[in-house]
């Protein structure tokens, strides 16, 4: 029996925006409009400033996952020799290229590739493969992993130099000098959107939470893909107003909210609704996640007069490009701020960067901060290893533990 969860009105608006976004990109294929494929953590503002449409293979892969096409596409990549142990986003997207299909009929071909390894080393290999497939310029931005808490100066300087090179490559692709004034405008738009996105997430600290993290996953598409545009701001203003309205009217995302949980790692796209239901049955709301947080991260250096330096500091990366001590601190902070009863850690077979260290983090959270965790072994896109029964048993057991702690 499924529980009726209140639906966000903004959801249909978001769907409209994303349909338009992909529709425009599809229509622009073969025209003079330049398009780039870019990793989710890379600085996209440069592209919007140069009027290049950014397209996100990761977002596209998630869409394939949510529409249950990913397994078939992964298998297509595996047939071409890609190991089943590789990232399922990479397999999904490469499979979509090889099979020439996806929910949008495949992504339009890129004129440029932009890869920043601030999210993982997998994208380095994935984009090398894309460059071999499409034979177009590849901007590779190397964001050194920050093992210790403070971003080191030489790493920031390295990032900045690479951003300058990024601009030079963009100029070659567009055949036009980079418009630094437009860039400033785009930065302002991007920051406004990121602030709105942060505000919305922080509103989930309210008890009961007006929105669920599972909604957050769905509603993160515009901040990923359209950060730096007015559409993005308009959308999040609308969403923010709706979430505020829920707070004002005392509407809870999970009726009768009893437990509050945090989520770590990427969403499990192929069963997002089922999981949402599963937790709702226990009156557990997922109110914060380390993943959407990545899209409003801002680095410690902020210099109005040197946007590239500020960007370098920001794009060295948030949660996932930092060591375990930093992650522990972030998780503990979330637990406190959002009054969490526990964490759900998606131990994601597809993501070694995000997942290795979770056992340790779970232990530290329990021992040092008194916050228990549930470890869910799954894969963000590939549902072939998923076992409903096993997940149900683990969720049940965890919820019993939480109940006993009360």
């Amino acid at each position, binding site marked *: 029996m499924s529980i009726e969860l209140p639906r966000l009105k903004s959801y249909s608006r978001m769907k409209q925006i994303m349909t338009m976004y992909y529709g425009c990109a599809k229509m622009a294929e073969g025209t003079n409009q330049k398009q780039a494929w870019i990793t989710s953590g890379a600085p996209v503002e440069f592209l919007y400033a140069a009027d290049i449409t950014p397209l996100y293979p990761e977002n596209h892969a998630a869409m394939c996952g949510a529409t249950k096409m990913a397994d078939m596409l992964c298998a297509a990549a595996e047939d071409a020799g890609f190991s089943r142990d590789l990232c399922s986003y*990479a397999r999904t997207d490469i499979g979509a290229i090889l099979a020439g299909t996806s929910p949008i009929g495949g992504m339009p071909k890129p004129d440029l590739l932009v890869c920043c390894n601030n999210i993982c*080393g997998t994208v*380095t290999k994935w984009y090398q493969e894309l460059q071999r497939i499409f034979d177009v310029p590849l901007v590779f931005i*190397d964001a050194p992993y920050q093992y210790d808490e403070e971003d080191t100066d030489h790493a920031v300087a390295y990032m900045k130099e690479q951003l300058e090179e990024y601009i030079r490559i963009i100029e070659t692709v567009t055949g036009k000098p980079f418009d630094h004034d437009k860039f400033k405008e785009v930065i302002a738009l991007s920051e406004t959107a990121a602030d709105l996105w942060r505000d919305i997430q922080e509103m989930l600290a309210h008890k009961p939470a007006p929105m669920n993290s599972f909604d957050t996953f769905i509603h993160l598409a515009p901040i990923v893909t359209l950060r730096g545009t007015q559409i993005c701001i308009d959308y999040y203003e609308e969403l923010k107003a709706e979430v505020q309205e829920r707070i004002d009217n005392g509407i809870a995302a999970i009726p009768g909210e009893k437990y509050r949980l945090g989520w770590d790692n990427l969403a499990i796209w192929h069963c997002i609704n089922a999981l949402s239901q599963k937790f709702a049955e226990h009156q557990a709301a997922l109110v914060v996640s380390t993943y959407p947080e990545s899209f409003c991260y801002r680095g410690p250096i902020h210099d109005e007069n040197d946007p590239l330096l500020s960007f370098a500091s920001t794009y060295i990366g948030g949660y996932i490009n930092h060591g375990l001590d930093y992650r522990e601190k972030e998780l503990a902070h979330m637990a406190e701020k959002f009054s969490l009863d526990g964490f759900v850690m998606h131990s994601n*077979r597809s993501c070694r960067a995000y997942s290795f*260290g979770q056992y340790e983090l779970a232990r530290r959270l329990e021992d040092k901060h008194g916050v228990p965790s549930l470890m869910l*072994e799954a894969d963000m896109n590939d549902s072939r290893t998923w076992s409903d029964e096993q997940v149900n048993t683990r969720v049940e057991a965890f919820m019993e533990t939480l109940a006993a702690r009360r």
Partner: protein
Amino acid sequence: MDMTALMAPFEKVASDYYGYARDAAAAGRKVAGCMCSYAPQELLYAAGYLPIRILGREGDTRRADELLQAFSCSFARSVLDSALEQEWPFLDLVMFSHTCDTMQNVADLWRAHTPDTDTLIASMPTRTDGEASLRYCMAELERLKKKLEAKTGPISDEKLTEAIRLYGDHRKTMQDLYALRAAKPGLLSGAQMMTISVAAFLMDRAEHLPLARAVLSALNTAAEPGGVSWPRVFVAGSMCRHVGFIELMEAAGCAVVGDDLCVGSRSFAHGDPDGDTPIEALARAYLERIPCPAFHRDGRHPGHALVEAARRDKADGVIFLLTNFCDPMAFDYVPVKKALDDAGIPALSLSVEQHREPPEQLRTRVEAFVEMLRESEGA
């Protein structure tokens, strides 16, 4: 020429991985364990450490399994397990270098769980071309140098230059040995070559160098025994520390004439250490080496590079040794396999677990492959 005598010191070291380091430590030498060939060993050497490579071991990884999910590679689990079991009390310091997502997190787990050993992480650039990457790499090496100096006192330019020269000379000798092996496989087997390499990772290079040179000069003048001509095989992969895999291949009737392995030729394929300062020379040597698959160099095609290497060594076929869950290699495998297919070079893929001996069933597959090579050669 007495090959047995020439090989004896290498075999001794390779048969007991950490015995050499243990003895050195007992004699009062500081020992530094390096997790990968990208750890700038010259810095450690100049600071007075004996740098050795951590290679993993046989046996289960129960303690590591509590910290690391099962979808991690066997190398990561094996070394982490040894650390948690405190199997290497003779190490004063462990140096990681940034390569893949797995080792990135293992470094963090390692340092949290081995408070008694110093851990240094060389955050080497993933990008190996361009001036920005060179500048960053130099700054990172300077940072590490300062960290080491805080432990051991100043590292003079002379000392560092000396270490860079030693490692440079040693790598050059190893490259010459690899070339000689490809030219005269009847004189030096692939298994012997790998034993020399494994010993190099575990010994003082100053001691290994004359021993390697002795093999080189003895074989340079020796004539290859005539008679049997075996199919020539090139081995590709990431990590493989087992000489046993190469022995198994050669026992099946082929000559392993070349490799692109991390515990093999790739670790000696560095650029010439040139630069205005020792740090620049060091940075260039590491950046210009044949990259590990976890790295990026604009325009590099791993498939073309491997076909070129296989052709250079006149290989009839390629055997892949693939470690499960090694993402960088798994990605490269596809274009490499395709390039080999296009070039008409047959290939066989074997899966390797770092903490286990080569399984017996591989023998049949290798034998069938070698048989196929022999037949196509005859045809």
